[in-house]
């Protein structure tokens, strides 16, 4: 079943004198449920832009975007936010953990935005800590963790609300190779459990964890 369907999707930014700079051009793309897709391409090709559009963070595009047959292009910002909260998890290259929150609190945040009861949240966080084997680190702050551990928490945070889709923006970009491998193995396992994954990567090796590679160049799918 097709989870993501993009038709004639374009994203541009206005320049001086009424001109535009296109970061994505005429994107037509299907991603089936359960796929593990890697988006590759040189810097400035539009990879991260595409990922943020898929994650419904960016609203300034044109074209058609269907998510599980829901026409995202017809949804307003609030509806897109609700859909994103329900279906999508994000993993960032910079981890983007909140510095002043402990590991436990960082995991709790996405749930707190989803009207999950406190008791249920506590159970889900405990379960995730256990699943990622980071129970001993639950009271530590991000700065007290290594890069790999921080990204582990980042992934744990992305999946804690059981999203159907995980979007990962160069998830291993800041990690050394062995840490990177750990994270990629984790993605592979999650994908095997049924989660659809779309990752942006520069690494051929990481891309090989997926089952499809999409090449972008100057905003075009090539």
């Amino acid at each position, binding site marked *: 079943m097709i989870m993501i369907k993009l038709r004639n999707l374009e994203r541009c930014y206005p320049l001086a004198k009424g001109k535009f700079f296109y970061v994505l051009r005429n994107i037509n793309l299907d991603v089936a449920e359960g796929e593990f897709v890697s988006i590759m391409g040189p810097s400035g090709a539009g990879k991260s832009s595409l990922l943020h559009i898929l994650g419904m963070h*960016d609203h300034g595009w044109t074209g058609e975007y269907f998510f599980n047959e829901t026409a995202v292009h017809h949804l307003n910002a609030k509806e897109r936010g609700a859909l994103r909260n329900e279906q999508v998890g994000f993993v960032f290259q910079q981890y983007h*953990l909140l510095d002043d929150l402990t590991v436990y609190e960082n995991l709790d945040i996405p749930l707190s935005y989803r009207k999950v009861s406190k008791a249920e949240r506590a159970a889900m966080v405990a379960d995730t800590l256990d699943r990622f084997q980071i129970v001993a680190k639950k009271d530590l702050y991000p700065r007290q963790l290594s890069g790999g551990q921080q990204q582990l928490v980042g992934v744990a945070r992305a999946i804690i609300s059981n999203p159907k889709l995980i979007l990962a923006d160069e998830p291993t970009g800041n990690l050394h190779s062995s840490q990177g491998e750990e994270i990629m193995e984790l993605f592979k396992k999650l994908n095997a459990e049924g989660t659809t994954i779309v990752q942006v990567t520069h690494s051929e090796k990481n891309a090989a964890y997926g089952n499809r590679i999409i090449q972008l160049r100057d905003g075009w799918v090539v």
Partner: protein
Amino acid sequence: MASDLKYAVRLLIKSPAFAVIAVCTLALGIGANTAIFSVVEGTLLRPLPFPNADRLVRVYEASDENGARGGSMNLSEQTVRQWAEHGGEIFEGLAAATGLNVTVGAIGGNSARSVQAARVTSNFFSVLGLPPALGRNFSTEEDRPGGPAVVIISDDFWRQYLGGQSDVLGATLTLDGIPHTVIGVTPKTFRHPYRADLWMPLTLGPPTPGQALNHYLYGVGRLRRGLTVAQASDAVRRMCVAINQAAPDSNNARSAYLPRLRESFVLDLRPKILVIVVAALCALLIAAANFAGLLVTRVIEREGEFALRAALGASWQRLVRQQLLQALLLSVLGTLGGLLIASWITPALVAMSPEGTDTTGSAMREFDCAVRFDWPVFTFAAGVMLFVGLGFGLLPAVRASRTDLRGPINSTARGSTLDRSARRLLGSFVVTELAVAAALLIASLSAAQYFRQLVNEPWGFSTDRRIAFNVPFSDQILSSPVAKEHALDEILTQLRSIPGVRTATVTGPSPMNAPRDLMTCNAEGVPPPEPRRYYLSYLRAAIPGYFKNIGETVVRGRDFSKIDTADSPQVCIVSQSFVRRFWPGQDPIGKRVKWGRLDGPRPWLTVVGVVGDAKAIPDPDDGEVVGMVARPFTQLLSTDAYQVDEITFVVETDNGRQPIGAAIRASLARADSRLAAYQIVSLDKAASQSRVTERFVLTLISLFGVLGLVLAAVGLYGLLSLHVARRQREFGIRSALGATAAHIVRLIARQGATLITIGFAAGGFVTSGLVRVVRNQWSAMPAPNIVSWILTAVVLGAVAFVACWLPARRAARIDPVIALRAE
């Protein structure tokens, strides 16, 4: 250095919001404080312009040995005579004075007019140490009975009425019909006492039995060199014992109350000034906290840059210099702004400063009270800000001296949110500002409510459509009671014939100046207070129908009537507070009031009526005044003891707007050509101009409250918005994780609310501390009431809400893509 300065300028231009908020904060803090203190200094605090002014004391006598302020009073002629004779070891000189209005005959193009004057003993100017600007002071022969008629004139009078003519000495002025020779002109701005324009010799009459009871003389003394006020007070006490042993008299003074002369003018203002000073310091503290908070925010924002520079080899001196230059630049701009603000505000405040005739404060107007720019306060305020600027300029040095540079550098690279310690530091500034602002607002509101009540206290009679004016009524013009009675009748008849005049009545003193005439008395059946054995009440002279015409209700008994003649039984009307004080729960009609001491020669007065209380703005020197006793003019005029220089006519007009001054003057001229009407004023206008000192203090306190609020608002907005701006990344992450705009706003609002709650709670402690400090000096300082607390909470809550909500709303609109891309 030049490159650092250029860099500092560039940084400020790059962050215009920061620069504008910082400069405005400094300018407001420095400018408003300077302007307000410039006015306070000129009108209330400036030292007296006399040599060795610290040896000048105001002299009051007391009938007991305590010499306390509350039990003391002006001097009697007997006391002046005794103390001048026996007090040579205490006083280098003792002078006395009394105020009066005199009618100056037509001079050149100027018609006859009434002028404020003073009669002073011949040594008055030499005791003060004031040489005349022109001519000479009085000689000892000139204040003796039968001495020459001479006058010293003020610089203003000389210039305005005599055209500043150079041959003024020896010129003749006709005062109350008697030619006087001008012998001197006082220095510019001197109008002391009684804001006089003319000074004439005061002749003390021969000793008489009742003389010691008439305490009408203002006394001023110059203490012998080396003598303290306490020593002088002891010496006066001993002198009084000796005088009483030599010539026993129960009316002899027993001690003296000797406040320093300048302090005597501002004695009751000191606590009010303290309130202003505390309010000013609070406002300055808020401004300083604002500035410091902004600088700290700036330092935190640039911490990564500092760390990077340090890692690249910048010395800590270099880092500090750069930050200090920026602080210095802001301080200079803020100081210049402060100078501008002070020069704008000062004239406006001068226009609002006390000019009226209240007892408190106005005496300072009799000296040099021109407002001058207060450089010491300006320097202090600017210095505080510079100190804050330089102090917080050192912060980067402290932070840069940390051995671990990795954190700050990484945080720059990541555009990190504020770390916990930075957030705590900024939070502490917000809390400090809120606490001080809350304390300032609560205290200002409480004090303002107190002064408002004083200012707006009802007069107890009608001021609507009523015009009052004074007429001289001295023995020199109208020599007998019959002549006075006749003149009163004539004037009233003429006034009532003016078109548009409904009623006309006469009284003394003016309805708004009850404290001018005091009466010693005792109430029937009530033991007299020891040791002086009399109470003080306000004395009012009234004609039949006065109370009805002035709109003061007779609540029991009757008004005066035609049957109350000089030969009929002596009667009086008393105020409700008099009845409450002496005959609570009893019918006062038919009871009697003794004029003077119980064993004195003056008559008993039968109470025939009770009227409501009229407002009297008490002279703090009078001590307890037990209410008002009104007497019929006819009966008062027939007694020698009633000596009055002026009486007040009140006319009620149809609409209170028509110009009536000319008609009044014409009426007076028809009734008696020697009489002149002066101070013609509508009672409504007079009411609005009463309590000018309190109004001024109220204005200043309100201004400081508003200033504190504005500064706090600017500071809170500045700090909180920068705080929020630094958390852009965090809000971006939260948005990416599912936070809605409402979530972000709620988060910021919750954190803001926490700071507000802590700040307000701390403000409560600061308030109680402030109130305690002020109450040590001013027991009447009102305790903060619930209204002040609630209003402050609402106002500060609203300010903090806006300060949180605006940046929160902005933060909620942050596109997570942009926020995260900023990485």
